[in-house]
């Protein structure tokens, strides 16, 4: 997609968590069109990834709501503004242009926007790296946290570590093309879909692959090329396994990621903003929700909603310079009601 011309829009919102979603609403009421980019494969941010089923008790007027319900309700609320979502994309670069900003994602999508709203919460969800000595040196060469090209594993001695759907799905998908396949998990119980577990056990029974119970304690190899693993099994058992490809699946964690390289002032991985406009050290770049900091900051979803509303006011003045902004209520303004599609 590198050759394509960039997508033009008014505002880019980085992060599709509750605060990013509500920013679509507040900007939309002021006629500002948004594209929303998120590294996850669906909207909701931490609400969807960390606690979709957990009740939240401090959303005004919703005595109890789960993370998933809150996400669904926000999606419904912002429908009139037709935001465009770009999932599974991480914004890697952000540069200033003559009349705004240019952004590029790891997937090669480019955007041009007049304002950027960073609503990235705790940062990008990234795969957890097992604390094994020297693992960084093998990453991208023989240790991978996702399968981008299956050919990378063709004819290889592959070890997959984990007990969830990612681990089991890739065990089943790569087993036919791998030279050998070994699944390692710390216990003989799996969180993955029962059907995948059944298929895996059948492959083990037929001798097509191995299942070993244990935890990897050491990597062996040189120059990025993995040669084998040491594994602590059950009890006092310790064993070695030869392999040249490793896929560890230990879930996701949040890291600030490329935001750190955009030239913004940072304080302990948070972005300082003023409390009038929620603007960063760079005019036209805003930060709202858990990622920002200011005196008295509370990391609450409701604080992020408030911040989105004030941010939108300033974004309006950047996008429509010189235009007067009339303060209106959705209860009484026929202009706003038209935008919401209710009249």
């Amino acid at each position: 997609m590198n050759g394509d011309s960039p997508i033009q829009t008014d505002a880019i919102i980085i992060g599709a968590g509750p605060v990013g979603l509500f920013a679509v609403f507040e900007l939309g009421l002021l006629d500002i069109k948004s594209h929303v980019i998120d590294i996850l494969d669906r909207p909701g941010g931490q609400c969807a990834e960390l606690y979709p089923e957990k009740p939240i008790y401090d959303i005004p007027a919703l005595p109890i709501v789960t993370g998933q319900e809150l996400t669904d309700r926000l999606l419904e609320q912002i429908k009139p503004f037709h935001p465009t979502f770009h999932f599974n994309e991480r914004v890697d670069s952000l540069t200033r242009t003559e009349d705004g900003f240019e952004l590029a994602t790891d997937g090669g999508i480019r955007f041009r926007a007049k304002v950027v709203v960073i609503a990235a919460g705790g940062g990008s969800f990234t795969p957890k790296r097992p604390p094994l000595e020297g693992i960084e040196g093998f990453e991208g060469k023989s240790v991978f946290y996702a399968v981008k090209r299956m050919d990378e594993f063709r004819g290889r001695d592959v070890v997959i570590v984990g007990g969830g759907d990612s681990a089991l799905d890739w065990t089943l998908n790569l087993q036919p093309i791998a030279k050998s396949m070994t699944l390692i998990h710390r216990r003989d119980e799996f969180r993955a879909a029962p059907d995948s577990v059944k298929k895996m056990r059948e492959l083990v029974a037929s001798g097509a692959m191995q299942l070993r119970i244990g935890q990897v304690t050491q990597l062996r190899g040189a120059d990025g090329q993995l040669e084998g693993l040491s594994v602590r099994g059950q009890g006092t058992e310790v064993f070695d396994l030869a392999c040249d490809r490793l896929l560890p699946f230990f879930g996701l964690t949040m890291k600030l990621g490329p935001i750190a390289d955009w030239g913004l002032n940072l304080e302990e991985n948070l972005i300082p903003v003023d409390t009038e406009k929620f603007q960063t050290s760079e005019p036209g770049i805003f930060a709202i929700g858990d990622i920002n900091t200011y005196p008295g900051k509370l990391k609450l979803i409701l604080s992020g909603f408030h911040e989105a509303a004030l941010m939108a006011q300033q974004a309006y003045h950047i996008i429509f310079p010189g235009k007067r902004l009339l303060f209106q209520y959705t209860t009484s303004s026929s202009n706003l009601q038209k935008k919401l599609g209710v009249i």
Partner: protein
Amino acid sequence: MPKITYIDHEGRDFIVDGEVGQTVMETAIKHDVPGIVAECGGACSCATCHVYVDPAWRETTGEPSQMEEDMLDFAFDIRPESRLSCQLRISDAFNGLIVRIPEHQG
């Protein structure tokens, strides 16, 4: 108030007053005990509040639930005494509890 002892991977101990009804994770955060990350804030969905319960205390603290056992799959260096401290709710019986904090929370 039940006294809770946290020992970090370098052997330093932190003895703090726990409150009945609070979790061992919340108590650590409240008293700035290092090494407990609690990324998800106590929802049992991140496995970054992993502790090793002292063997003498395993009976008092009981066994992890199925959900906690599943979450422990996301932690590293799991041992039989591994627990997620957000799932350890303090009662009077916890007075004197000792937990060890792993070097890495992932």
